[in-house]
């Protein structure tokens, strides 16, 4: 199932990337080449095989739900492109 221009545009929208027309065209052909190579996985019979999402078998890790203030709060806020008092500032999201 080849990747088309509309697929790249739809995915770019989901990924919040504003691609140029040239980037879109290049990605269509690169995606087809790369995903075409990956079709090789269809040679393998994986019926009934459990997927692996984590390489080391693990139980859930839990801890006490205790608040620990982060010491460098000011440094965190200082890293933001734009703040207003104790808040992050972003362009208007509703009218």
């Amino acid at each position, binding site marked *: 199932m080849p990747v088309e221009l509309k697929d790249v545009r739809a995915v770019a929208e989901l990924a919040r*990337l504003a691609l140029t027309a040239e*980037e879109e065209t290049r990605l269509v052909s690169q*995606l087809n080449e790369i995903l075409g190579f990956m079709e090789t*996985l269809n040679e393998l019979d*994986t019926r009934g*095989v459990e*997927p*692996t999402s984590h390489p080391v078998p693990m139980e859930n890790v839990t*801890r006490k739900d205790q608040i620990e203030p982060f010491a460098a709060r000011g440094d965190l806020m200082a890293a933001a492109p734009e703040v207003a008092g104790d808040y992050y500032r972003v362009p208007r999201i509703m009218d």
Partner: protein
Amino acid sequence: MALNELTAHELKTLLDRGEVSAHEATTAVLERIEATDDTLNAFISVDAEGALSQAAAADRRRAAGEDPGMLGGVPVALKDLLCVAGGHTTCGSRMLENYIAPYDATVVSRLRQAGAVIIGKTNLDEFAMGSSTESSYYGVTRNPHDNSRVAGGSSGGSAAAVAADQTILAIGSDTGGSVRQPAAYCGVVGLKPTYGRVSRYGLTAYASSLDQIGPLTKDVQDAAWTLEAIAGHDRFDSTSIQAQVPAYSQSFNRGIKGMRIGLAREHLPPELDDRIAAVTRQAALSLEHCGAELVDLELPVAGRGEYCLSSFYLIAMGESSANLARYDGVKYGHRAHGATDLQSMYQNTRNQGFGDEVKRRIILGTYVLSAGYYDAYYLKAQQVRTLIRRDFEQAFARCDALLAPVTPGPAFRIGEKTDDPLQMYLTDIYTVAVNLAGIPAISVPCGLSAEGLPISVQLLGPPLQEEKLLQLGHALECSARPC
């Protein structure tokens, strides 16, 4: 021998005897960086002032008779994907050009506890996505053995810095070979520990189920020392393993008599580069000569590069598209100016902040995770990941470690593969299976090609068997030179 050319254990001996100071050692590496980095571009930032003050502190501790720590006074370089409090952490990206980390990565705190002197941050492919350090926003790193060739990637800066004696040792991260492959191209030792052996807290995430931090060093003993200093459970990383950390620094030279070394038929195909095949076969004979036994076996899925690469890139790109969603121009990093609505602020920020390779992986990752394609690509890749794990489990029932090539050839020329992403991905053909299975592996230099380019082999072991890999790596080193 100049101080910057020493291994960590050699330098430590001189420091402990009081024959040299940490100040002198640090000055030597800083001078070497000054003299060579205009050409190599191994460093993104160097903190000379901070390094000299850490060195002075190490000298004071020694003078006061206190324990200076395992790496007391030893200069260390860090891949610029690791957070150091108060310093720049760029991840090789424009997105984080001005980012100042508010905390130390756990690896950094442990290196500090061990007395290491942190000298600077090394170059890497943008967000560790690449195999040549060519996708860095801060320019390519050149191979010290041949400046027209790549140093490998993504930890190319760390590998080149160690190879060029700009540091005593370095730290990198390995998601699909990013420690082992540049180590091989630059002729240094690179260790990828078991997934979870080293805490990932403070390591910028690329593909969270594959990422692991490891050392790049001048010899196997230094890799053992560094791993001992940085390994162990950390409450800030819930995927870090609880198991006790062995004294790698004491056990790496215990010999390999009776160990069984597996050679997979699939790892030495007829089309393999002659130089790589010859070095791998010679390494097998050397191990046999040191008392190991060779076992022929098969890895029908885990030994097949095309299956491993496909599974790896589908999973890595899927995970990276989710991990990189955090770069939205709100809490830190780059923000595009002039946007009047939130949506275009996000889009412009990300389009300006990310380079081509990162965008390609985000797009591909988002595509394979999206409705309608998930089962065909991502789920299939995870199922193949299970087959790869099983292959290794079966192999390790018959042997203690596997011996394999690290790369399909020696370091390639700068620019040779930048226009063809698939060709670039194919350079990782021997390294990615290890990350999918979460097992440890070490890349050890074993010789030079006729044109003077380093060639290495890797040893792969079962989970948490780093000790055996270090012992085997040390045996290979000893057979290559008197020790």
